[in-house]
């Protein structure tokens, strides 16, 4: 909000950056082989770190490699260069310490909400009763206690993602990775989910890395934003362009969407993302004279 002095925001960010690094990303790169024997580099030389208790978003145009990045961080793909450090130690492969919420609803359809949330706990070797009581707490946290014994097909999209969040959090991950988790939701549910997520983040000791292609979402949620760039003639691969501090106070409110710092940040990111898309680079579409339509309009 505009009436909050800027110093408190910058001191908050400074405090955040002095926190220990939870996830270190060190020169990470991903190269895919092509069928013809050559290679495509989706991502190269990406380095940044996420601090404890931080909410960081990653934004970029399509083709910038943000999906590859989060899949590597989740351990679902291997990096071809560089490494990832969790609490300072090199780490790879899927692991419950790096919880993940996917864009698609990846709840197990054959398990009730409760059993879905218990899944990770039981995989970790926890006994049934303890897993159950812990899972119920997480379901409570996302406000779905009434739906604990319901199967996923009976839930709305937003509810499914809340269960997915509870399921990932139940494992008490060091960091929660979110891959465009609200991308498939309608605008209203999406806004609701953003509010829910901020609440959960506030209530739980949580570090989040959140991927999105929605500028408003990226700014509204984040403490810092990593802006990735798509390949260009100079840099032929996805790359990290800049990391931007978000000059907005917490708790976030919907009014901030129209505040000057918000809009300034948005303009800055837009400038970064779109600076290379000049109209001449787009192929001109063929002009077709639609006589009938034109006649009717005139």
């Amino acid at each position, binding site marked *: 909000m505009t009436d909050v002095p800027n110093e408190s925001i910058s001191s908050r960010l400074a405090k955040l950056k002095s926190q220990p690094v939870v996830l270190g990303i060190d020169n990470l790169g991903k190269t895919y082989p092509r069928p013809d024997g050559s290679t495509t580099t989706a991502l190269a030389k990406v380095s940044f770190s996420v601090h404890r208790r931080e909410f960081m978003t990653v934004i970029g145009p399509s083709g910038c490699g943000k999906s590859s990045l989060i899949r590597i961080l989740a351990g679902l793909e291997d990096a071809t260069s560089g490494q990832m450090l969790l609490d300072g130690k090199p780490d790879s492969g899927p*692991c*419950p310490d790096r919880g*993940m919420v996917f864009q698609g609803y990846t709840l197990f359809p*054959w*398990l009730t909400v409760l059993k879905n949330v218990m899944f990770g706990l039981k*995989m970790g070797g926890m006994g049934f009763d303890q897993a159950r009581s812990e899972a119920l707490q997480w379901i409570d946290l996302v406000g779905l206690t009434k739906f604990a014994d319901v*199967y996923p097909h009976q839930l709305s999209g937003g509810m499914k993602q809340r269960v997915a969040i509870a399921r990932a959090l139940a494992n008490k991950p060091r960091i929660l990775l979110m891959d465009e988790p609200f991308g498939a939701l309608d605008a209203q549910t999406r806004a609701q989910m953003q509010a829910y997520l901020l609440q959960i983040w506030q209530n739980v000791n949580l570090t989040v890395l959140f991927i999105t292609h929605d500028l408003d979402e990226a700014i509204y949620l984040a403490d810092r934003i990593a802006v990735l760039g798509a390949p260009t003639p100079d840099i032929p691969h996805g790359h990290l362009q800049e990391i931007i501090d978000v000059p907005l106070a917490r708790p976030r409110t919907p009014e901030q969407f129209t505040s000057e710092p918000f809009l300034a940040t948005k303009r800055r990111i837009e400038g970064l993302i779109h600076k290379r898309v000049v109209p001449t680079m787009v192929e001109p579409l063929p002009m077709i004279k639609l006589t009938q339509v034109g006649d009717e309009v005139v």
Partner: protein
Amino acid sequence: MAERWFAVRRDLSPRRQTLLTVGAFVLPLLVWCVISYVPFVWHPLITVTNPGGSSFLAKDMMIDRGMFAAENAKVVAEGKPAAEGYRSNPVFLPPPHAVGRALYTAFLTPPVRKGEPWLHESLWHSLTIIFWGFTAAAIIGVPIGVLCGTFDFFAKLTEPFVDFIRYMPAPAFGALMVAVCGINDGPKIAIIFIGTFFQLVLVVANTTRQTDRALLEAAQTLGAKGRHLVLHVVLPGILPNLYNDLRILLGWAWTYLIVAELIGASSGISYFINQQGKYRNYDNVFAGIIMIGMIGLITDQVLAILGRVLFPWQGKPPGKLGKIILACVGLFRRKKVAV
């Protein structure tokens, strides 16, 4: 707005669905009735009731209408009394009531020759053959199929060979199986096994491959590994489809049964059908075929309803019968808790 009977990819109302389902059975029956009971429809033969002056015709003889007319013309020209008869269908198309009666009496009629099984014994025998052949194929085939669908190692190791054998018709193994398993039930069970096992492995492998990759990835980020991924994600995920696969393959098993039962010492329902055909009791032949159809249809429907009860998370309503089954299961569970 009036409901349309022909709307692209739209379900009809439950009433219309029921109506059409009933019609699916009633219409063929109606056609059969018309052909059987309306005398001027088809009826290409004449059944002779009185040979009259003809030395060629005999009582109860069935003869082509044209030949009957020619014979009668000849007889009348010779000044002898004309033969009499009524139009009838060939013996291989008995009227519905005869088949209906046969369905009922077939169970009450003692076997023609001493030592032959009664119809219910034949049926039971067929059911046991199907049961053992299919169960053995499923018990061995499902795990192999799941392994093939999960691990490329097993797929590449087994599938090419399975594919090769799949193209060999199971009945071709008949003589071989008699040599290996004797002449009684052994070769029959073996034929059913060969007929279903190889298909089953491939179908189950394919079904397993349809496991949602995203679910596997989600499970991995939740800490599931190796064996647990197969047991807690792949298996439960494919279970409803696997169940449907088995339902379809059970139908295949019935197809092979007919061949299998004629191998070695003939037995079972197909032996009954064959024997009755030899005696020209075509009403019994029809009764036998219809019995197989009914057993197939009923098992399939029961299994379909059971499937909806077993997999409630698919969101398909269990239906009335399913609810009854659920209620029974519920009662049973409560009793168990009370004890």
